[in-house]
């Protein structure tokens, strides 16, 4: 088994705050698992940045700086732990990511700067994911094997076996990670993924993840789903799985660790279901208003850090303020950048092709 990355001294550093004291508290515990204080702080800081990013994005949807918002406030604990454990790179030696539109935490943990998210929300030509064409959170980064996110829920479960086929042929430890919500698993594509990943003698290293927030837009899952758990659906296929408390950073870290380790070493699929909170509704369509009745994974981690005297409230507030300032600065910068022009409408439809006499370079309108 590969051990989690060791924390560097830098990981303990939070913008000038004295770090040495954290070394006196090397472990935080949850039930019978533990994680180093340094890693917990790193995760906490990233979670705070993700939350600030989401909240600023929601403001953009209300201020006219952007239109539709969709995201995943409440999923930071799980998503940040996931992003930190991805083997990031390009090509089948690395992990492929078939994400959904609530994955900001994964991307920021992998190192995506805030501006790369805001450029899509602001529909700028500089948006690296879609050139201002797609909704926010619809990331696409070939250098990190992040394939384009689709608004259509669950289709990504059909594609993950494809990248996993290439990874298995290639050899190595690359895993195809596919993430969706609980409601999307009602469609057949989730089953397709299980079938294609467990064909006899042709099993595939697919890590099937469901961030289960208990809702499909406005419909409660417990009014539509009778299965004991989504992960349990893997039983018939011999796919092991686990249901984890998505608000518990330490539990998430090790559940993701076990899932990756299984896929990397056995080259077989695994289902990981995280029970997460949904703190701002589904999207702009439900007003994106704060939901106060669900647990907040950031508050939970914050309280744990404070209780263990690793953090004090003043420092915690400073971390949130710094994250908020970072988001504001990034948005201010992004809003100055170029919008697409009418000339950009047709671009990037077709790759150049010398076998096509009408569109040898790109789409140029109806054939002439």
């Amino acid at each position: 088994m590969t051990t989690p990355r060791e924390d560097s001294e830098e990981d303990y550093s939070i913008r000038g705050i004295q770090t040495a004291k954290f070394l006196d508290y090397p472990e935080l515990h949850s039930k019978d698992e533990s994680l180093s204080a340094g890693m917990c702080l790193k995760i906490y800081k990233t979670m705070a940045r993700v939350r600030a990013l989401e909240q600023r994005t929601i403001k953009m949807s209300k201020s006219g700086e952007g239109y539709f918002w969709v995201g995943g406030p409440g999923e930071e604990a799980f998503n940040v732990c996931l992003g930190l454990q991805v083997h990031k790179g390009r090509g089948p030696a690395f992990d492929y990511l078939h994400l959904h539109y609530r994955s900001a935490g994964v991307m920021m943990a992998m190192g995506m700067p805030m501006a790369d998210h805001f450029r899509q929300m602001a529909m700028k030509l500089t948006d690296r994911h879609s050139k201002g064409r797609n909704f926010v959170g619809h990331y696409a980064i070939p250098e990190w094997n992040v394939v384009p996110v689709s608004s259509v829920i669950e289709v990504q479960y059909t594609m993950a076996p494809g990248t996993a086929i290439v990874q298995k042929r290639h050899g190595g430890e690359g895993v195809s990670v596919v993430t969706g919500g609980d409601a999307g698993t009602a469609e057949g594509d989730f089953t397709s993924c299980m079938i294609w990943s467990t064909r006899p003698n042709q099993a595939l290293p697919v890590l099937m993840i469901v961030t289960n927030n208990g809702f499909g837009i406005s419909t409660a899952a417990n009014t539509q789903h009778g299965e004991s758990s989504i992960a349990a659906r893997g039983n018939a296929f011999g796919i092991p799985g686990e249901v984890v408390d998505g608000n518990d950073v330490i539990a998430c870290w090790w559940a993701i660790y076990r899932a990756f380790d299984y896929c990397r070493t056995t080259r077989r699929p695994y289902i990981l279901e995280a029970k997460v909170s949904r703190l701002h509704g589904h999207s702009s369509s439900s007003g994106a208003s704060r939901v106060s009745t669900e647990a907040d994974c950031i508050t939970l981690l914050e309280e744990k850090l404070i209780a263990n005297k690793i953090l004090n409230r003043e420092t915690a507030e400073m971390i949130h303020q710094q994250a908020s300032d970072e988001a504001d600065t990034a948005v201010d910068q992004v809003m100055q950048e170029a919008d697409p022009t009418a000339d950009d409408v047709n671009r990037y439809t077709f790759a150049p092709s010398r076998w096509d006499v009408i569109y040898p370079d790109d789409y140029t309108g109806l054939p002439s």
Partner: protein
Amino acid sequence: MASLVQAVRLALHYGETNLGVTDIFGEDVGPPLGGVFTATQGLKKAWNTPLDERGIVGAAMGIAYAGGKPVFEIQFCDYGFNIIDLLKLAGNQRWASGGSYDMPVVMMTPSGSGIRGSLYHSHSFESWATRLTGWKIVMPSDALDAYGLMLSAIADPNPVMVLLPKALLRVKGERRIPGEPEDDEQLSRMIDAPVGDRSQWEPQWPDLEEYFVPIGQARLVREGQAGTVISYGRTLPLCSQAADELYESEGLTFDVIDLRSIFPYDWLAIKESVLKTGRVLIVNEDTEITNFGEHLLRRIVEELFYDLLAKPRLLQGKHIPGIGLNQVYEQNTVPQLAGVRAAMLELATERV
């Protein structure tokens, strides 16, 4: 000469040997069957999938994301209605990602009537397909074009859909594929799997040569003055035959254009011919409402209206829920030779 389906197989062999095809897959595509129409017999890269069209398209997209070059088959286009959203996604991945991801997949699927296929083995697909922006759609009507279009589809780095006319799959070509042996029987002995146990069989592939039919280039299969007939797939040979018969009986000659590439289509060839004849008939067998031919008619009317000598026409399938199994149904649902000939005669003889 090779049949159309043998030509597809030869092209796939050329593709897996020389053009980087990594996977050829679908329902019954691999051994022992090698495709319900035998299009994939004996291919090294052919493999079977679950009977799951959505899984097939998704897997192809995933393989393409990871650098592979997949060719997937939807066994009949009639089974493709549950994959429309995935086809839309495949078509828009490059545009949606601002050029970050190409989608070099080839989909091949038998389309159209003519094999007594009843409700779910007789559909046409081109009108649906042309609404899938980001795709290129081709449809051969003979073996050589099937070979050349397949090679272009494979080489093109974009999603390309190859619609194979079911009724013509076993029709032998009149033009030789480069590298094809002289003797039909010899070709069959070399590449057709034996009936019965095939476990020890291996094909003997001829020494094929590269031959690309450019995407977007039509073929003028008859040349004339009395009118322009635009078609593709199963109805194309009917148009050619009708032109030959009308020359014999009436002395009339027609431009018969095999579109071959449905999108992008060869507007220049259409325009030049219509400007020459002033009369145009489009023939296909898709259903009548929102038929792809209507798009061509719209452009012809908008751009060439004052050059027309007679009303432009579309001869197509009827707008009914399916094609009935009894041949009375089929023959009265999609264009047949007599109807094509009558429409061409009417086109050529209308006086305004």
